[in-house]
C-alpha cells in the first residue's frame, strides 16, 4: 500500500519515525520549532516531541552546527537543519574540519553520528547567494556521506538511513520540490545510502542526474521518445559514495551518456562521473561523455538569466543528439 505525499511530508515522516524509535535523535535549526520550519518540513514536530528535542536556534550556523557536532561526539544523534545549504557555508568549518575528521583524528574513539540537511540548488529568481549547489563541495570530503534526492519515497527512506548511519551525512533537498508529490509506501522501510536507481529504462542513451534535475531528464526523455530515441534515466540519489556501477552497467547497454548536473561545470559531480566512465567503460563508449551543467557563472536575478543558467529539456536533448551524432 502507498499514498501520495509531498517531499516535505515524506521527510517529516522520516524524522518523526526515527525520533519515536530513538530518544537520542533530536532536531535543531533556525525556525524548526515554533515556526514549524521555514519550509514546513518540521511542521507539528515541536508539539509531538517538545522543546528539548525540537530546538529553535539563533541565526548562528557555525555555532549550532558545532554544538551539533559536540553533541554527536558525546553520543547523541542530532539532525541539524540549514534553511539552505547556502547558509551552511558559514558552518563548513564544523562540517569539514570537525564532523568529517573527528573519527579519524581520534582513531575511532569518537564518532559523529549527525545529519546536516536542507535544500540545495537554484530555486527561481533568488540571485547569486541563494542558488548554489553543494553536492560536489561536500562530496569531495572523506568522512562525509552525501545524499541528494527529491523523490519523496526515496528521500524518506534515505533520510531514515542517514539518521541511523553512524557517520556524518549531508542531505541535500530542494526548496522548489518540497511540494512535489510522489507515491510513498506505508510502513517501515529504508533506502540504502550509496545506491543509484534507474528511474526509466531505455536503450539508446544514458542520462545520469540527481536531485531535481532528474525530473528535467525525465521530461527530456519523454520528448526524445517522440523522436524514437530511448533514453535511460539514472538518479544517483547518493553523491558520496558514488554508485558508478549502476551507471557503468547502463553505458554498457546504451554506449552513450549525458550527465546532467545543476552544479557549475568545473570539478563537479559531472566531472567525476565522466572520469569514472572513461576509465571503466571506455571500450563501450560510441561517443565522448557529454555533460549539461548550470552555466559557469553566478546566477543573476532576472528570469532571463535563470533561463540561460539552468539545465533544461532542450539543452539535454541537444546533448543527447550530440552523443548520437544526430544533426538537427
Amino acid at each position: 500500500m502507498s499514498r501520495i505525499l509531498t517531499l516535505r511530508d515524506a521527510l517529516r515522516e522520516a524524522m518523526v519515525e526515527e525520533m519515536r524509535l530513538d530518544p537520542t535523535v533530536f532536531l535543531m535549526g533556525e525556525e524548526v520549532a515554533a515556526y514549524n520550519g521555514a519550509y514546513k518540513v518540521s511542521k507539528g514536530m515541536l508539539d509531538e516531541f517538545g522543546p528539548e528535542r525540537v530546538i529553535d536556534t539563533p541565526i548562528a550556523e557555525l555555532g549550532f552546527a558545532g554544538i551539533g557536532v559536540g553533541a554527536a561526539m558525546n553520543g547523541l544523534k542530532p539532525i541539524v537543519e540549514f534553511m539552505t545549504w547556502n547558509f551552511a557555508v558559514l558552518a563548513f568549518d564544523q562540517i569539514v574540519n570537525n564532523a568529517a575528521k573527528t573519527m579519524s583524528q581520534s582513531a575511532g574513539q569518537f564518532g559523529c553520528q549527525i545529519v546536516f540537511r536542507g535544500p540545495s540548488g537554484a530555486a527561481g529568481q533568488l540571485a547569486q547567494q541563494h542558488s548554489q549547489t553543494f553536492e560536489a563541495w561536500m562530496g569531495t570530503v572523506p568522512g562525509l556521506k552525501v545524499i541528494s534526492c527529491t523523490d519523496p519515497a526515496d528521500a524518506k527512506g534515505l533520510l531514515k538511513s542517514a539518521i541511523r548511519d553512524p557517520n556524518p551525512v549531508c542531505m541535500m533537498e530542494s526548496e522548489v520540490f518540497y511540494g512535489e508529490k510522489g507515491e510513498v509506501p506505508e510502513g517501515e522501510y529504508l533506502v540504502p545510502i550509496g545506491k543509484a536507481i534507474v528511474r526509466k529504462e531505455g536503450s539508446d542513451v544514458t542520462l545520469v542526474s540527481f536531485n531535481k534535475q532528474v525530473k528535467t531528464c525525465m521530461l527530456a526523455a519523454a520528448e526524445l521518445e517522440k523522436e524514437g530515441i530511448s533514453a535511460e534515466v539514472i538518479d544517483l540519489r547518493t553523491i558520496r559514495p558514488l554508485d558508478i556501477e549502476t551507471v557503468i552497467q547502463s553505458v554498457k547497454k546504451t554506449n552513450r551518456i549525458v550527465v546532467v548536473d545543476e552544479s557549475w561545470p568545473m570539478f563537479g559531480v559531472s566531472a567525476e562521473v565522466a572520469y569514472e566512465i572513461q576509465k571503466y567503460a571506455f571500450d563501450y563508449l560510441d561517443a565522448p561523455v557529454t555533460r549539461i551543467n548550470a552555466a559557469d557563472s553566478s546566477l543573476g536575478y532576472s528570469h532571463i538569466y535563470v533561463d540561460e543558467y539552468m539545465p533544461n529539456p532542450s539543452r539535454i536533448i541537444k546533448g543527447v543528439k550530440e552523443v548520437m551524432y544526430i544533426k538537427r
Partner: protein
Amino acid sequence: MQTTADKKKIKAKYSEETYATWYETMLRIRRFEEKTLLMYSQQKIRGFCHVYIGQEAIAAGLKTALRPEDCMVTAYRVHGLALMKGLTSRECMAELYGKDTGCVRGKGGSMHFFSKEHKFFGGNGIVGAQIPIGAGIAFAEKYNKTDNICVTLFGDGAARQGALHETFNMAMNWKLPVLFICENNQYAMGTSVARTSNVTDMVKIGLSYDMPSEQVDGMRPEVVHEAVSRAAEHIRSGKGPYYLEIKTYRYRGHSVSDPGLYRTKEELEYYKTLDPIGMLEHSFKETGLLPDERVLEIQESIKDEIEDAVQFAEESPWPSPEELYIDNYVERDYPFMKD
C-alpha cells in the same frame, strides 16, 4: 623556632595529598614538554608542536577541582591537559612519534590527543572550533540528565573568533553545563592581546552574555582549583555556563618554530619569577607542606616515567600504511576511490 610540622599546621589549607597531586601534575607536564622539545630537535617528533610550559598550574587546579566523569575539550596546545586528564606519558609520547601505540595510533600527532575513556574530546587544530563543540558535549550531558560538566578551554586568540560569541550566546540561552576557560597567555601566536582588540580585559567578553565571569591568577594551582570549584558548583546546580579568564604565560614560543621575538627578555624574565612549579617548590621549602623526601620522590618518579615513555615510543611499531583508510568511516568496507 617552629618545626616543619608546626608550620604545616598553621599554613596547610589543603591536604598533603592535594599538594602532591598539584606538584606531580605540573612536574609531569613540564618534564614531558621539555623532553618533547628535545626529541623535536632530534627530529623524532615532526609537524606543528605547541608546548604548555608555564601554564601547568591551570592543569593542576583543574585536576583536583573536577570529577573524572567531567568532559574536556581544548585546542592544539593539548599535551598538558591530556596528561592531566589521565592519558599516560607513554601513549602521549608514542603519539608524538607517530607510532601505532600512540593515544590515537599516530593519526593525530601533537595537536590531536583524544581519550574516550577519560572523556577527553581533543585536541582541536582550528582556533576556536572547540568552543561550540564543548557546548555541544555539555548539551549531551544535559540531555542525558547527568550532572557532569564540560570544560572548554581556548586561548586569548580564539576569543576573537565568531564561534565563541555564537556559542556563549546559545550556551547561556540554553543553560548548558559548560565551563569556558580562556587560558590567556597574552599572545595569539605573535600578536599581543592589546593589538587585536580594544577590549583587553578578556573577562568582559562573558559579561556581554550575562555569563558569570571571573579573572583568575593562573600561576597558582590553589587559586585555579578554587575558581574552578566555584564555577563547577554553579554549573552543576543547573544555573548554566561560567567563564574564567585565567591569566598565564607561556615560556616558550607559540610553537617550536617560534623564537618569540615579539616580547622582551625582561618580560620573559619577570614571568619566570612567577614560575608555578618554582613557586610551589619554594613554598614547600618555606612551609613544609610537602616534605623534602616526598618532593624528591615525585621528581625521581616523574624522571623515570618520562624516560620510560621515550623508550616506549622508540621501541613501538609504526602503524601499517593500510591503517590510513581506517576510521574515516565506521564501516570497514567503504568504497574509497583508489585510482
